[in-house]
C-alpha cells in the first residue's frame, strides 16, 4: 500500500471550489463525484428493487393455505352479530360467561351491559362493573318513561380505527371478519385503546398487551357459538354467518330494520342492533 494522505492533499488544491458548478455542463465534472453519485444511485436503486421484491414475494403468494387447515376454512365464513335490546333483562350472564370463558382479568370486561333510564326530565346511564353482578334498583331525580338495557362489545368493524393506528401490526382483521390482537406482537402502547370509539379495548394489567372481544375465535372456528351467545337466557344475542343464506342472523340483517352504533364514524360495525334508542351512543 502506498501512502494515500499525501496525494490526497495535493489533489485538493488544484480542483476548483467544489460547490461552484455542481452539475454544470461547461466545467468538466469532478470524476470522483460522478463515480460516487453513479455508484450511490446504483446501490440505492438496487436496494429499493430488492426491498420491493422481498415485500412482493411475501405478500404476492396466492396459494397460502388458510390458517385453520382442513378443519376450518376462513374464506367460507363471514361472521356477524345481532343484539335485540328489547329482549335484554340485564342479568349480566354474558359478562360472566365471557369472563369465565376467556380469563378476563378482574376489573375489566370484554363485553358489558349498559342501562338507560330516560324520561322527559333527563336521563341516567349506569353499568356497575359492566353489569357483572346485575343491576340494583336506582332512585332517579326525574320521572322515567322508558328504560332498557344495551349489551355492548367490540363491533368488529370493517373499517377499523384500532387496526389502523397499530404501529407494529399486532391488530388485524381476519378474512372471516373478526378483529384480533396478536399478544406476542403487541407492545402495549395503547393507541388502539384510545382509537376505539366504542371503548371495547383495554390493556391487560398482567401481560401489558391490548385485549378485546374475539367473538370467541377459539369457539367459532370449532362450530360453537361465542360464550356470551351461548349463555344468554333471553335470545338477546345472536351470532351468525353472512355467507350462509339461511342463517337467522343474516335473515335478520337482510329483512329487519337494524341499526349500528355511531354510524357517523363510518367504521362499518358488524354488530347490528334491533330496537336501538337514539339515546344510545
Amino acid at each position, binding site marked *: 500500500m502506498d501512502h494515500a494522505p499525501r496525494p490526497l492533499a495535493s489533489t485538493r488544491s488544484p480542483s476548483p471550489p467544489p460547490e461552484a458548478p455542481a452539475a454544470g455542463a461547461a466545467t468538466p465534472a469532478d470524476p470522483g463525484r460522478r463515480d460516487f453519485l453513479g455508484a450511490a444511485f446504483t*446501490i440505492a436503486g438496487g436496494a429499493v428493487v430488492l426491498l420491493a421484491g422481498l415485500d412482493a414475494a*411475501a405478500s404476492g*403468494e396466492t396459494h397460502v393455505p388458510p390458517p385453520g387447515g382442513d378443519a*376450518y376454512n376462513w374464506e367460507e365464513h363471514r361472521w356477524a352479530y345481532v343484539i335485540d335490546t328489547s329482549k335484554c333483562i340485564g342479568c349480566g350472564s354474558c359478562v360472566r360467561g365471557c369472563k369465565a370463558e376467556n380469563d378476563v382479568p378482574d376489573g375489566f370486561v370484554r363485553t358489558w351491559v349498559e342501562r*338507560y333510564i330516560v324520561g322527559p326530565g333527563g336521563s341516567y346511564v349506569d353499568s356497575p362493573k359492566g353489569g357483572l353482578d346485575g343491576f340494583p334498583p336506582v332512585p332517579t331525580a326525574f320521572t322515567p318513561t322508558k328504560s332498557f338495557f344495551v349489551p355492548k362489545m367490540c363491533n368488529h368493524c370493517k373499517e377499523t380505527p384500532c387496526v389502523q393506528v397499530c404501529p407494529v401490526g399486532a391488530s388485524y382483521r381476519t378474512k372471516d371478519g373478526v378483529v384480533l390482537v396478536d399478544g406476542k406482537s403487541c407492545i402495549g402502547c395503547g393507541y388502539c385503546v384510545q382509537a376505539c370509539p366504542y371503548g371495547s379495548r383495554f390493556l391487560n394489567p398482567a401481560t401489558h398487551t391490548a385485549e378485546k372481544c374475539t367473538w*370467541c375465535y377459539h369457539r367459532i372456528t370449532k362450530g360453537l357459538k361465542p360464550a356470551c351467545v351461548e349463555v344468554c337466557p333471553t335470545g338477546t344475542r345472536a351470532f351468525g354467518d353472512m355467507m350462509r343464506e339461511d342463517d337467522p342472523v343474516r335473515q335478520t340483517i337482510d329483512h329487519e330494520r337494524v341499526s349500528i352504533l355511531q354510524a357517523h364514524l363510518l367504521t362499518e360495525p358488524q354488530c347490528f342492533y334491533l330496537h336501538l334508542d337514539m339515546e344510545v351512543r
Partner: protein
Amino acid sequence: MEHARHVFRIALVLLVVITAIFLGRGFLVPRSYGTFGPYRADNVAEQMKIRPPAHAGAASCAPCHKAKSEAHDAGGHKAVSCEVCHAPLLRHVTNGTVSGKMPVDRSFTLCARCHRRIQGRPDKFPQVILEQHVTSKLEGAVCLDCHDPHSPKP
C-alpha cells in the same frame, strides 16, 4: 484512481448499512408476517387454539344428569343454560371425567340477578319486588323454599 477510493469507501459503508438493514429485518419481522396482510399470519391459528372452549351448552350435562336435564328442558327455565347458574363444564368435567366440583349457588341473589324488579327490564319478563314477594326474611336460599330452580312454576 485516488478519487475512486472515496467511492469504494462510501460504497462499502452503504453495503454494510444495507446488509445490517436486511439482517435486522430478517430478525425483527416475524416469519409469517405479511402472508395475508400486515400482521403475523401464524397468530390466526394460535387464536383458534388459544384455550379449550369452557362452555359446552345445556345439552352437555344431560348424559350424566339425566333427571335434572329432563326436568330443566320441560320447565320454565329451559332457556336458562345450566352453566349460567352453575359454571362452565370445563370447571367440572375434562375429557369426559369429573375433574372438579361444580359450584352450586343457593342464594337468593342468583335469582335476583334475573328476577328482581328493576328499571330496564322488559315488562313482560316475570319479575318480583323482592321485599314484597318474600314475606319471611330475605336471606340465603329463601327462593328455593317455594321454587325449584330447575323447573320453576309461576
